[in-house]
C-alpha cells in the first residue's frame, strides 16, 4: 500500500484536511490547558495582591539556581523538539530518533532536578500540611504560597511526565518506521504540546522563584 493511503484515516477526504484537523485539535486542546492552569494563576494573582510580603518571603524559599538551570534545560528541550518535528517532516529517521531522544533526556533531567527540589523542601519541612515547619514572619500565608508552589509546579511536572510518555511512544513509532513525511502529524502535534508545557514553565519560574529578587 502506498504511504499516502496508509497515512489517510478513513473519515477524511484528503491529507490536507487530516493535517488541518490534527493541528487545530491540538490548538483547541491547548486552549483548554490554558484555562486549566488559568484557574491556578487567577488564585495566585489574587493572593499575591492580598499578601505581597508573604509571597516575597515564600519565594525566597525556592532554589533560584536549580530553577534557572531547569529553565535552560527546558528551553533547550524545546529546540530539540522543534528539530525533531523538522526531521520528521523531511523523513530523516535517524535524526528524528536522535532529537526525540535528546528531548526525552532533557525532559527527564528537568523532572530529576524538580524531584531534587521537592526532596529539599520535604527535608526542610516546607511542605504545607501538618508537618509544616516554617517559623518566619507570615508563616501561615507563606504556607499558602507553598500550596501554590506545589500545586502549580506539580501540575506542570505531571504534564512533563505525560510529555515524556508521548516522546517514548513516538520513538518506538519512529524506530519501526511508522513516521514518514506524510505521517508526521503525530510528531507535530506532540511538539505543540511540548512547547506549551515549556511556556507554562516560563511563566511559573518568575512568578514563583523571582518575586523578591529585585530587592
Amino acid at each position: 500500500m502506498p504511504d499516502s493511503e496508509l497515512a489517510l484515516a478513513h473519515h477524511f477526504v484528503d491529507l490536507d484536511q487530516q493535517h488541518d484537523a490534527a493541528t487545530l485539535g491540538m490548538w483547541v486542546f491547548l486552549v483548554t490547558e490554558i484555562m486549566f492552569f488559568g484557574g491556578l494563576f487567577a488564585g495566585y494573582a489574587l493572593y499575591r495582591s492580598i499578601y505581597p510580603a508573604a509571597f516575597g518571603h515564600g519565594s525566597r524559599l525556592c532554589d533560584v539556581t536549580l530553577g534557572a538551570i531547569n529553565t535552560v534545560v527546558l528551553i533547550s528541550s524545546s529546540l530539540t523538539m522543534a528539530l525533531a518535528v523538522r526531521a520528521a517532516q523531511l523523513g530523516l529517521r535517524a535524526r528524528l530518533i536522535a532529537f526525540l531522544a535528546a528531548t526525552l533526556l532533557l525532559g527527564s533531567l528537568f523532572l530529576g532536578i524538580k524531584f531534587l527540589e521537592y526532596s529539599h523542601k520535604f527535608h526542610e519541612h516546607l511542605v504545607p500540611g501538618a508537618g509544616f515547619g516554617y517559623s518566619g514572619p507570615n508563616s501561615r500565608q507563606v504556607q499558602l504560597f507553598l500550596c501554590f508552589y506545589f500545586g502549580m509546579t506539580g501540575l506542570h511536572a505531571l504534564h512533563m511526565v505525560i510529555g515524556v510518555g508521548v516522546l517514548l511512544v513516538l520513538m518506538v513509532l519512529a524506530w519501526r518506521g511508522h513516521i514518514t513525511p506524510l505521517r508526521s502529524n503525530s510528531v507535530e502535534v506532540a511538539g505543540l504540546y511540548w512547547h506549551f508545557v515549556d511556556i507554562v514553565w516560563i511563566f511559573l519560574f518568575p512568578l514563583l522563584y523571582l518575586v523578591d529578587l529585585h530587592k
Partner: protein
Amino acid sequence: MSTTLLEPGQEAGRNYLNADYSIRSWLLTTDHKRIAILYLVSITFLFVVGGASAGLMRLNLMTPQGALTSAETYNKLFTMHGLIMIFFFLIPSIPAVLGNFLVPMMIGARDVAFPRLNLLSWYLFIAGSLLAMVSALTGGVDTGWTFYTPYSTTYSNSYVVMMAVGVFIAGFSSILTGMNFIVTIHTMRAPGLTWFRLPLFLWSLYATSAIFILGTPVLAISILLLGLERIFGVGIFDPKLGGDPLLFQHLFWFYSHPAVYVMILPGMGVISEVIPCFARKRIFGYNFVAFSSVAIALIGFLVWGHHMFVSGQSVYAGMVFSFLSFLVAVPSAIKVFNWTATLYKGAITYHTPMLYAFGFLGLFTIGGLTGLFLATLAVDVHVHDTYFVIAHFHYIMVGGAMMAYLGAIHFWWPKISGRLYPDAWARLSAVVIFLGFNLTFFPQFILGYLGMPRRYHAYPPEFQVLHVMSTAGSSILGVGYLIPLVYLLWSLRYGRAAGPNPWGAKGLEWQTPSPPPTENFERTPVVTEEAYAYTGEEASVDA
C-alpha cells in the same frame, strides 16, 4: 399501521445498526452514530436515577415535618439529584447524543474529526458516572451540587472526594466532545457548505463547544484543588491560612454559570431546526439567530457573579454582574422573537416535535423573564436561595432544555432508528409532560416569593398546599416521561419504517437512508442552497 413487517427492500441495505451485532463491535466502535446510542442509553439510565431522587424529595415534602426521610438523607437526595441531572444528564444530553449523531451528518462528513477520542469521551463519562454512583450508594454527598468550601473541604462528613473525582473525570469527556465538534465543524464541511449555510443547530453546538473547552477546565482545576484540600487538610481555599472560600465560588461559577448555557444552547439549536420544518418556512433572521448563540456563549462567561450577590462580593462587582446578566437576556430574546416570526404565516402542522417546540417557547420565556428578577440586585436579596430560584432554573433546564431534548429525540428518532413512533401517544405524552411540569414548578415560584428557602427538608404548615400541588405535579411529570420510554422502545420492533425523510425536512441528514449506513453518505454531498430552503409548497407530513 402495519406492525412487524417492513416494506420489501426497506432494510435491504447495510446500516450502522445492523453492520455488526456483537457486543464488542459496540464497545469498541468509533462510529459517531453508535457512540451517540451508547450515550443515549447511559444518560437515560442516569436520568432515571436523578429523577428518582427528585421523586423521593417531593414525597418527603408532602408534609411540613418531612414525610419520608431524615434531614441528612434529604440533603443527600437533593445533592444527588443536582449532580446527576446537571453533570451526568443535561450537560451531555443534546450535545453527546444528538450532537454526536448529527454533527457529521449535517455537514456531509463520514465521522467526527477524532473518532477514537470520541469513544474515549464515552468511557470517561462512564467512569465518572460510576464513581458518582458508587459515592452515592456507599454514603452519598450532602454538600449540594455546588460543593461550596469550607463545608465541602473541612466539615462535610460524606463521600465528597469520590464524587468530586467523578465530576472531574466526566468533565474531560465534555472537553473531548467540544474539541471534536469545533474541529469537525471547522475542517470537515462538505463542498458548498459555507458557515452561513450551516444548520443553526451546528451554530449552537459550536457555541456550546466553546463553553466546554473554555469553562470545563476551570471547573476541573477548582474541583482538583477542592479534592487536594480535603485529602491533605490544607489548601488555597483554607481560611486558616488566609485563603478565601469565596474564591472557590468564583472559580466554580465561572464554569457552572456558562454550563447553564451549555444546557440551553443546544436546545435552542433544536428549536431552530424543528420550527422551520413544521412551519414550512425559512427561519426568520438566520444571521441573528446564529450570532445570538455566539453572543450568549460570550456574555455568558461574564455573568457568574450573580450567584454571589449575597456572598459578600463588593457592591460594585454586584452592579456590573447585574448589568451583564440583563445583557445576556438580549440575544435570548432575539431568538424567541425570530422563532415567533418564523411561525408567522407558516403552514404549521402539530406533530410531536413541534408540540415540544411550542412547550419550549412558552416555558423558556417564563424561565428567562424570571431570571431578570434574579439579576436585579435588590429583588435577588429577597428571593435568593428560595424556591423562586429553583422554579426559575427548572423552567430553563426542564421546561427549556429537557423539552428541547425530547423534541429532538422525537424529531430525529426516525433517522436514528429507522422507525416511526405512534404519533398519538407521543402527542399525548408531550401534553402530559407540559401539564405536569407546570403543576410541579409554578407553585414553587409562589412558594419562593413567600419565603420558602431551598434545600430544607421541613417547612411551616402554611406552605403545605403549594408543596402538595408540586408533588402531585411531579408524579404527573414522571408518568409523562415514562410514556415515551415505552413507545420508543416499542417502535424499535413494531414501528413503521420511516423512510429517509418522514417530515419532508431540509438538511443533509435527511438525504440519506434511515438508519444511515456506517459511512453516512454514499458519496460526499454537495450543498447548493441555504439552510431551511422551505418554500411552503412541500407535501405535508403523513405520519
